[in-house]
């Protein structure tokens, strides 16, 4: 009788299966999370604990010394450290904003207007998801050289406008905007851009949050080392990677660096998770 009641609430579920489910999740969940916890714990370890033998997983006497050392090190850098931070923030902000607007406009036309070439163009974008950007690295360099964009912010910002994953997700999500809504806006005499900006865009808020996060994740980690030579144009990840290269001598500071680089995207994802999941619900590839 008891078992029957259990099944009634959640069909096709057995207690054994549920236990199996939880055991697997806990097991693999620990595999996923332990290195992260270790990275966090390391960032707060005093130096003698980092080099302790046998090594200890958790921090015993947590300290913020590593962060203090990091800021001291930053203060001594040749180019003021705030410059690296500014570069990354600037590239990320402009690149992300441009990407959301440009990709949304294109997605709107592809999804809501039917015109010759729209299917073909979208198919090419989908195909571009099927190869990694590394295969175009070399010609990209030549293109940048031709445009005279080497060693400028443009070389990092403008290609970010064209991420194909963003266009793809936005176009798929725009299916959810009812056509009647757009039609009534047009009937009221709104121009196409107005319809797009004041009617369509507010409907797809989860999607542009998703585009912001994905574009942010890419740009936040971008070192730009291929296109940028001038020290004062280099990004935060580049500078932090230089610190990481210090090896054992910089083990404590390095742990603080890893912590800072990982915590920002994770917090961003925590805040926006529900919007992202909502967007991904329409992410499917249809025939």
């Amino acid at each position: 009788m008891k078992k029957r009641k259990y099944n009634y609430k959640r069909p096709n579920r057995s207690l054994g299966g549920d236990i199996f489910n939880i055991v697997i999740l806990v097991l693999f969940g620990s595999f996923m999370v332990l290195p992260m916890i270790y990275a966090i714990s390391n960032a707060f370890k005093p130096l003698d604990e980092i080099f302790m033998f046998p090594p200890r997983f958790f921090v015993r006497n947590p300290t913020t010394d590593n962060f203090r050392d990091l800021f001291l090190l930053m203060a001594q850098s040749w180019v003021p450290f705030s410059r690296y931070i500014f570069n990354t923030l600037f590239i990320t902000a402009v690149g992300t904003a441009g990407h959301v607007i440009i990709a949304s406009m294109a997605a709107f036309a592809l999804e809501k207007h039917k015109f010759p070439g729209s299917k073909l163009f979208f198919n090419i974008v989908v195909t571009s998801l099927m190869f990694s950007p590394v295969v175009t690295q070399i010609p990209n360099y030549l293109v940048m050289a031709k445009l005279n964009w080497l060693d400028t912010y443009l070389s990092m910002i403008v290609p970010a406008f064209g991420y194909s994953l963003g266009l793809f997700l936005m176009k798929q999500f725009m299916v959810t905007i009812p056509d009647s809504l757009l039609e009534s806006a047009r009937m009221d005499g709104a121009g196409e851009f107005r319809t797009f900006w004041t009617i369509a865009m507010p409907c797809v808020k989860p999607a542009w949050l998703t585009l912001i996060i994905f574009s942010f994740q890419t740009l936040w980690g971008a070192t730009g080392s291929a296109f940028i030579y001038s020290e004062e144009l280099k990004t935060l990840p580049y500078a932090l990677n230089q610190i990481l290269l210090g090896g054992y001598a910089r083990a404590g500071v390095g742990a603080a660096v890893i912590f800072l680089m990982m915590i920002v995207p994770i917090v961003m994802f925590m805040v926006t998770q529900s919007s992202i999941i909502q967007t991904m619900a329409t992410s499917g590839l249809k025939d």
Partner: protein
Amino acid sequence: MSAVIEKQVRPVHGAGTAFKSKLANLKHQIIKNRVSYLFLAPYAIIFLVFTVIPVVVSIGLSFTYFNVLEKPKFIAWQNYVKLFFGDDVFLKSVKNTFLLAAITGPIGYFASLMFAWFINELPPKIRAFMVLIFYAPSISGNVYMIWTVMFSGDAYGYVNSTLMKLGIITEPVLWLKDPRYMLPVIMIVVLWMSLGTGFLSFVAGLQGIERAQYEAGIVDGIKNRWQELWYITLPNMKPMLMFGAVMSITQSFAVSDVTIALAGLPSVDYAAHTVVNHLIDYGTLRFEMGYASAIATVLFLTMVICNKVVQKLLRKVGQ
């Protein structure tokens, strides 16, 4: 409207005017849809310049000798001949890349699906937390550097010290220097990071299936969660399964940052050398751009063909 015009024009005039009328038709279409084209234009131009043209240029350069300083010199198939018949390191990198892709691709894909499915059984609050835990490694920048400490070759490494304490090994193993262990260690790290965008797509897909479908399934005689998965859940998620596959395949063929961070470039005996590593080696260190473009072209074709084949297979799910 335009189709009607074309039909009327063609029989009266010759082939030359048919082409002209097609052009006129095209012009007419462009003017009629000018707003749509204007909306698309900014994205299309950027996409063209930074994605489409580079692919074409890369294929073109792969038939040349090009060292950036001099003009490219056409050498036909020589780069490809050298690649497949004269470059043992490339062949080794192909072997490593295929091993990595064949193991981490499918395992990462099915793990994404399985964990998304398991997580979906949990109450919403815990679900959000578990999604975060499983997804986090793929977005945490260079936190994979932590694995170099775990697999450090001296006794300070966690894996070594644990195994020594347990008495399984007596002296430290050089995990990241010994060709026997490098690739497996890298696979573990790649798998650890493999629950990315595809995983999120699965989580979302599972949440989107209506309860009514499962209830109808019980009436049709579905008895347990596995049958439910095969007959109801998976067919409903087909578009997400195809999207996730694209993400997995593309990622698993492009592994390179992890191998450089863990094993170095070049790695000992090239035991962890991947095709992308080889591309970086020739493209950014040796400046043999023609040769590097040939590598890029091979990689491009492999990824696209592999994706298309898997898409074909996945269409059959639940049919």
